[in-house]
């Protein structure tokens, strides 16, 4: 498709840099050498994901494409691009910031919704983001009760964060607007192996799991640019 260069925001990056307080910098130095993509684990499994192109679109100011892209949500955050970059561009931070911006534009909510539960139920309630809960029945069968293993290892049966600590992280969450953000996006239940029926179990064991479950439509996700009408989603 013919792109209209006059639609691009040429100096967005210049404006963005001071606002982001140094989280993103040096994108203007990008040589377009492709070293980042060459070693990228995400690019190796997803043909359309390409950090080099995302940087290029940012510097050009073609933000519509960056923010609405599904590719933005495919980064592995492995920092490999940063470790090889000849110009020291810390690309994972760009992705991190762009995802916030994309969410502001109404994209990527499906992804974050699924993760919101970790913050709400585990991080803020227990102070520990990864709980002992297992989604995988086989793992449960193999391991058994984790608290017994903990006790055998000379640890208390459950790692507990003090009430004071929990009150503090909850206040941080409230003060910084994280709580209201979480309320806004809501959450979805992830597939829980305890509640799944026989048919689901069979499918799960024989076929790859669907990438998304519950209310989310999976077909719009792959190699496709966002969900059309994503903005309406945000406004609602």
């Amino acid at each position, binding site marked *: 498709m013919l792109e209209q260069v006059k639609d691009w925001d040429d100096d967005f990056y210049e404006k963005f840099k001071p606002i982001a307080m140094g989280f993103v910098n040096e994108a203007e130095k990008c040589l*377009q*050498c492709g*070293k980042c*993509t060459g070693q990228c684990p995400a690019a190796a499994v997803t043909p359309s994901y390409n950090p080099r192109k995302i940087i290029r679109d940012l510097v050009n100011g073609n933000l519509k494409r960056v923010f609405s892209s599904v590719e933005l949500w495919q980064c592995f955050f492995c920092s490999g691009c940063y470790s090889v*970059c*000849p110009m020291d561009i810390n690309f994972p931070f760009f992705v991190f910031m762009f995802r916030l911006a994309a969410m502001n534009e109404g994209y990527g909510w499906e992804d974050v919704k699924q993760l919101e539960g970790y913050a709400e139920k585990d991080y803020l309630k227990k102070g520990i983001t990864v709980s002992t809960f297992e989604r995988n029945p086989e793992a449960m069968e193999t391991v058994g009760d984790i608290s017994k293993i903990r006790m055998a290892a000379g640890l208390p049966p459950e790692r507990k964060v003090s009430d004071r600590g929990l009150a503090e992280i909850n206040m941080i969450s409230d003060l910084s607007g994280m709580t209201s953000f979480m309320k806004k996006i809501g959450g979805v239940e992830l597939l829980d192996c305890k509640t799944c029926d026989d048919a689901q179990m069979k499918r799960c064991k024989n076929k790859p799991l669907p990438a998304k479950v519950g209310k989310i439509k999976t077909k719009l996700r792959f190699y496709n640019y966002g969900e059309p009408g994503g903005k309406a989603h945000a406004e609602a």
Partner: protein
Amino acid sequence: MSKKTLVIGGGIAGITAAQKIAQNGGEVILIEKEAELGGNFAKLAFTFPVLGDAKALVAKEIDSVKSAATVEILTHTVLQSCQGSAGDFTVELKTATGTRTENVAAIIVAAGFHYMEPTAYTEYSYGRSPKVVTSLEFEKMAAENRLPQGKARVAFVHCVGSRDKAKGYRYCSKICCSYSAKHAIMMKKANPESLNYVFYIDIRALGKGYEEFIRLAMEEYNVRYIRGRVAKVIESEQKLLVRAEDSLIGNPVEVEADLVVLASAMEPPEGSRELAGVLGIATDEYGFFQEAEANVRPVNSSKPGIFLAGSCTQPMEIAASVAMGGLAASEALTLIK
């Protein structure tokens, strides 16, 4: 007052400068810290863009400078101190046998360059795998007929140390594009079964016949040019896995290579800052000698009477070094006569 000129460095730029001064009746002391004259030129097998026999070409030049009656050649010699001003310098030389003091009218610095050791490039497995070599080592391998045999795949990596803020230098080393093409051609000539891949970011082949030379590699010698800097070289059982992005397509690619040749950057000669300190001239941020005026005074250093020639000022090819040596000689001659 002395009529002599001191030439520091016995590479092609220094040899040319000494020859030209001698031809015009000047006396020259040519000092070289190594045992032999020839510098980096003598370490090559072929020249580009015209594939000439480098060893024969440089040998001819060395013979002609050695036969010049007014050129005194001192090998294993370094400059120790330098006093005075244009037309009347007092220099102290440390030779193989002792020190000697000379009075010279002009000094030509032709200290050459150094191929960067890409030890920092651990992502290319340099220093760990014997199959990853620098361009200079490749020249040696070619001269000794140690190039891979049979259906070998060879990857040539551009910009190792050049155009790299993190581990190397921000400048472009100018000649790597051309000499990698030369290496690919050498490889194909030595082993017609071999498949050669050149990974480039931009092809910078500027000068007469250079573009045609690169096209020759692509068209006649079937060298595959892939636009994308190599991200990493992984050691596998027998092969090396070369990972890069083909950035014209936008997809990561992997080449199973038998040999990886790193086109390492041209960096300032070892001890260039110390030499500049002894002479009292300026260097740039990288350690190359700074010219007085880059456009119209390319051979004048920041101090009158001291002239610069060749790749100690910036990365350059052989022809440019020769031209610069000639210009430095004519500048020096104005001080002698």
